[in-house]
């Protein structure tokens, strides 16, 4: 009988261990770290604005994302700013601030397709003097059609060859954002 008492105690002990597992009635997880929206706004010195925008409010799967490209003027210099938002919560979370806080761990890459006459250069830098890409300069050439791909990398190797100049090839890290916009230059 003594043994069976001990066994009972042990069984009770393990039943207690199981209590934390019984969380079936909690609500679903609130996803953090979500980025639903990227707005890449391009300003000319005369104050005209073109915004390339990607938004996917319901996250992966579900409804298709809404992607809107833009039309730029030929042979023009634009000042570009990238904004990242989480619009699935109220109030809207401005993820850009989180990236600014960890600017040494993030870098944006701007990759025009070969048919598009445009080049993008960085106009900001982190504390180590490496580019981030939240602010950039876009210069258009002759009229053309193509795509502009914008990639946000988390923990890239900014010191790797070509990375500071905007070449993603040796950057490594994880892609947080990768979106492609149709762009027309006329």
């Amino acid at each position: 009988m003594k043994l069976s008492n001990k066994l009972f105690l042990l069984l009770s002990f393990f039943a207690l261990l199981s209590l934390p597992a019984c969380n079936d009635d909690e609500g679903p997880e609130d996803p953090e770290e979500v980025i639903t929206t990227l707005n890449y706004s391009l300003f000319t010195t005369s104050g005209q604005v073109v915004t390339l925008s990607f938004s996917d409010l319901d996250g992966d799967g579900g409804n298709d994302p809404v992607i809107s490209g833009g039309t730029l003027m030929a042979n023009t210099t634009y000042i570009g700013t990238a904004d990242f938002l989480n619009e699935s919560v109220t109030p809207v979370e401005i993820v850009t601030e989180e990236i600014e806080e960890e600017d040494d761990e993030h870098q944006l890459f701007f990759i025009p397709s070969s048919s598009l006459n445009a080049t993008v250069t960085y106009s900001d830098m982190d504390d180590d003097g490496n580019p981030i890409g939240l602010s950039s300069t876009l210069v258009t050439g002759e009229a053309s059609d193509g795509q502009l791909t914008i990639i946000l990398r988390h923990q890239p190797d900014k010191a790797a060859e070509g990375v500071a100049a905007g070449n993603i090839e040796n950057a490594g890290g994880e892609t947080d954002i990768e979106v492609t916009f149709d762009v027309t230059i006329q």
Partner: protein
Amino acid sequence: MILSDHISFRLSGLLVLKVVFVLLFFSENIYAQDCSLSLTGKIMDKGTAIPLEFSNVFIEDLGRGAVTDKDGFFEIKNICPADYHLAVSHLGCETVEIFLVIKKDTFINLYLSHHEELLDEVVVHGSKAENTTAVSSTINRATITTESNENIADILESIVGVSVLRNGSGISKPVVHGLFGNRVTILNNGIAQSGQQWGNDHAPEIDPFVADHLSVVKGVSTLAYGGNSLGSLVMVESAPITNDPHLHGETNYTFETNGLGHTINARLEKKNDWAAWRVSGSLKRKGDTHTPDYFLTNTGQRENNIAFQLDKKWNSRWDTEFYYSLFNTEIGVLRGSHIGNLTDLNQAIGQKIPFFTEDNFAYNINPPRQLVNHHLVKVSIKHSLSDHQILKFNYGGQLNQRKEFDIRRGDRSDIPALNLNQFSNFFEVAYDGDFSEHFFLKTGIQFTYVDNGNQSGTGILPLIPNYDAAKTGAYFILKNSNPSKWFYEFGGRYDFKYLSIFTIDNRISRNIIRPTHHFHNYTISGGVKYQPSHDFKSSFNLGYLLRAPEVNELYSAGLHQGVSGIEEGDPNLNSERSLKATLSFDGVVKEKLFFQVLGYFQHVQDFIYLQPQEEFRLTIRGAFPLFIYKQANVNIYGTDVLLKYAPRQNWSLTAKYAIVRGDNLTDDVALINIPSDNISTSFSYIFSDENFLKNTSLSLSGSYFFRQGRITDEQDFLSPPDGYGLIGFQAARDFPLGKNKLKISLKADNLLNTAYRDYLNRLRYFADEPGRNIKLNIRYVF
């Protein structure tokens, strides 16, 4: 000579593995305190029953012994009635320790394992209930201890027909006959291991050091274990504790050069008046491993394990066993294998050296990493109704806690991205006994309850929903009780499974849904074994099984970060229906050439698998490959071959060859993750001369893995790697230290430091396999 009462004794549990024994009879000529008793016996090989000449039987307490003749017989005379420790040794066999109470003239039959690769489950257990037509292979304690720095799947890999699915060197799970994960049941001391088996990057949570033997059952008659697969069963078992009233134990230390790994294990056991107990523990620390050319940054591993066992025999009718084990591990995943989307993957694949490779060695483990705790409690009560009838009650409780940490923005890397607790309870009432004059019956009723819950606070939508699963099953197996040349068995099993899911749907409003599922499944199987002589046996098995879909197959939804794909389940999946046949031949030619050949064929209707979709899923993080759980009809078939040539007792040559084929008949393509053909050979030599090399053994091994050439380029991101060959070397020596023993062994894996990649390792996209590794193992047994 009169056949009198039985003395039953148990071998020292430490070394039990190598021994089954016992058939004792005694003559009644007792002269009190008369020192004229004799101990006689016969020593044979456990796998083949061949008598072992020149075995040494040594009574440690007397300091004298005898050597067996060519028929395996020995005799030691002039013994006083007392308790004795016996050491039995033979060239090439692990020394066996026996505690024996001698009161009268005693005869013992003893089995040593001279041919470890030929052992099977039946030989290991040696009881009537264990006789089976299933085919199995076993690894014994000596090998397990020398390899205890490895993961359990890596040790099992030495069994022909077993491959290993890896996610780097730290995470590995066994593949038996082409199947793994949900389809391979792992029995941890008789209890089906319950954790997150669905993940290809989730290794079984078991410390190999607790095991006295590891077996893989490859037949189909495994109904008693409610397996999800036909006969692909891995058994991890500890032996009964010694009957020796003195404290015994062993300690074991391994150092490995690749990863600068240290593993310390210890085990103690004793039989007290009240009960017999055993306690064992392991500590493992390992840093970054190294390929021939660079470090694999963040591939360290830590493990702290403990196990406790208590056996109590109340009387001749009642036995109880209590077992508890705790497994704790922290494993780093190669930093350069952590990627975002498909673009990242393609870029990582193109790298000669993985991203984030550091120039220096480190023990640190950073995200991505896994942290796993696994508790297991087993209570077993055995009641003998009569000499031929046993009633057993078993309870198994398991708590599995898995946390996976990813590289995340902000300070979230210390918040688990996946945090799952699974609590499972297993109850069983089983009966073994004579059913009729001709049949022996094994039957039982089992109940399993699983509560699987995501722990809140991860900030990530879970891939696997919360669920409760209840399963009730009943089985019976009938075996013929007086096997002659023919032995046959057949049986059936029925399972009712109830699944209650708690999850959210995929609409923007994220509604909570609570679907439920019911599955009625059954299994039938039968087998026949023909053994005309000691030198030959053949078995044939046939089985039909229904397997209910698991939760991940029904309800996965989202990004599986470990494999960088979006996985979606299908709640409308049916049970898999599978028919499997196996045919095996085992034999010995002139006591020199041993062979084991096994062929199998399995047809599965509605085989559930992850089908890569042609279109990628576009998200704000870029495109991800999309995998959906689908069903198809498949054939899986193959052959395992083992040959051993041992012309003399001091050298032998072994060759193993395994082929598996998997065909998806519905889509007319090969199945993915099927092991490539592989062959391995080894030559071992033992110095028998009485010179300074006495007790030294050497072995040289070579293996070749062919390229998996059946996968088309469309089926994978990267075509399967080239075939590769590896060479290994091992030297071991025993140093007797009085009653205790010291064994030192030196082993080199990948001796030539070959750079290669393996098809079944997910890290093949990113990095080479580890290079040369030299391991020093010191084992002290007392």
